[in-house]
């Protein structure tokens, strides 16, 4: 039962000032937000609910993974950045944010990633904007002396963003693009399968995946088939982010293999891929 968990959660509703909004491409933006109280609480893979504008259309906030923690010279986190891909009205409003604008930003929310400890290897599999939750995880793993490998896939090279930030942390990045314009041609599962084949016997891996549902499902299947565990970050259509509305449910399997709808904002967004009923997951 999640009740004790719920009672100790203390998110912050910040009026976050836009420090910078950088267009990475026609549809990707990186938005830096000043929110010291909120930033101080963030754990790897958590998300925030953002309303980029006043007014009733669109009405609801949107969930965004915390991408980076912005730190001042003394190392203290004073803000966060979000990676936004323009897909609808709200993300178009995010793309249009200007320095100095103030957005409502509620968080941090959701169950965080558990960083594994060496000698278990950490592999992160990102598809497109699914890169977003991995910066905070990468930092935690690097800080623990267990730097991960990033498998990063996109449709084409032009859609691969911010990988330099991972490389600067000393992380090995393996690319895959559907058109072969960078790295392996095809999906990230191809270089991951090779990496599994090259894995020394007895070595354990924890895979962390975020991206389109078919990609996460494929990564989970591959990982589980090789005898390892894959934690996935699921994004569902979400109403409130706080457990109030029961909109963002996913079907989770109990020990007997029976599916039950659980709120991804509270029980997730991070789930052990083996506990998800993938056939019940839309889109």
């Amino acid at each position, binding site marked *: 039962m999640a009740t004790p968990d719920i*009672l100790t959660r203390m998110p912050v509703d910040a009026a976050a000032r836009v420090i910078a909004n950088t267009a990475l491409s026609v549809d990707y933006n990186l938005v830096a937000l000043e929110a010291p109280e909120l930033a101080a609480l963030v754990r790897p893979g958590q998300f925030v609910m953002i*309303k980029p504008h006043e007014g*009733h259309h669109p009405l609801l906030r949107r969930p965004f993974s915390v991408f980076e923690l912005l730190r001042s010279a003394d190392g203290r986190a004073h803000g966060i950045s979000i990676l936004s891909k323009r897909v609808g009205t709200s993300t178009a409003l995010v793309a249009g944010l200007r320095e100095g604008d103030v957005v*409502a930003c509620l968080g941090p929310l959701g169950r965080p990633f558990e960083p594994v400890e060496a000698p278990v290897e950490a592999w992160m599999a990102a598809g497109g904007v699914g890169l977003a939750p991995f910066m905070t995880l990468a930092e935690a793993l690097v800080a623990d002396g267990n730097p991960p490998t990033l498998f990063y896939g996109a449709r084409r090279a032009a859609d691969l963003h911010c990988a330099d930030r991972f490389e600067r942390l000393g992380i090995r990045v393996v690319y895959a693009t559907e058109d072969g314009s960078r790295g392996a041609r095809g999906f990230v599962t191809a270089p991951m399968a090779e990496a599994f084949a090259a894995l020394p016997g007895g070595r354990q891996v924890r895979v962390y995946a975020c991206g389109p549902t078919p990609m996460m499902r494929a990564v989970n299947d591959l990982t589980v088939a090789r005898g390892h565990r894959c934690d996935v970050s699921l994004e569902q*259509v979400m*109403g409130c982010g*706080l457990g109030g509305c*029961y*909109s963002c449910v996913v079907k989770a399997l109990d020990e007997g293999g029976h599916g039950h709808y659980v709120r991804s904002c509270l029980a997730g967004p991070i789930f052990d891929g083996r506990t998800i009923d993938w056939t019940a997951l*839309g889109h």
Partner: protein
Amino acid sequence: MDLSVQIGRLRLVNPFIAASGCFGYGVEYAGLLDLASLGGVCVKGLFLNEREGHPPQRIVETPAGMINAIGLQGVGVHRFVEEYLPPLRAAGATVFVNVCGTSIDEYAEVSRILSDHEGVAAIELNISCPNIKEGGIQFGCSLAGTHDVVSAVRKVTTLPVIPKLTPNVTAPASFARAAEEAGADAVSLVNTFLALAIDVETRRPKISNGMGGLSGPAIRPIAVRMTYECASAVKIPVIGMGGITSIGDALEFLIAGASAVQVGTANFVNPLIWNDLRTGLADYMTRHQLSSVSQIVGTLDMKR
């Protein structure tokens, strides 16, 4: 300033109640705000047993609103009284329980179980959920059904009984009257408006259940009108709701005749709205030199 209101025998510290289905079981919000600072917390609709609800996608946004078909997923009354009621009591919440049923017996049984436990302040009868096949709105769309559910529950509990009315009828006021005659202590309205949003590319509904219930600012003027009609038709208190996002919106309902209001969808957007509502109400009362919220209730001058 004293913002308290009276709903029959029940005294609320202020007129602002979290609407059912929009505030989980209340405990989800305990880390973010003081539950005792709300006039009341109305928890997600409960049947006797657990319910899975509808498959996702369960909500879609529409202009100034949203359509939902959650399908009343819930833990059932037994788990509620064991796992959720104790922390709600500990937090000092005034707990309204939204009671559902597929039969009159089920409404009565759930209400009876709740009455056996300390910490429930009132029972709100959900006879107006548009999203389930059996029960709910089927009772709320028939005057006899409304009467029968209310009188059956009336017999098994001394708690305040507050049937929640549907706006999906021609004359909600006649349903308020039927509820009053059956012994209701108050009525609340509105539940959501049955609605449909279509994906034109696939020519299919945007949510899995097909139709759903419309809530949010889009419905507010209709909800205010219905609140006015009901308050004019009955002597028992009326709790108004539908699209409240600000103190100005809430005041419209109070002036139209509501003794208290519920806030649903707006809580998704601004979970700290309760602070703004309280401050806004105190401001209004100061500006209009009022000492009691009751001096606002039902003061609409229709003559213009």
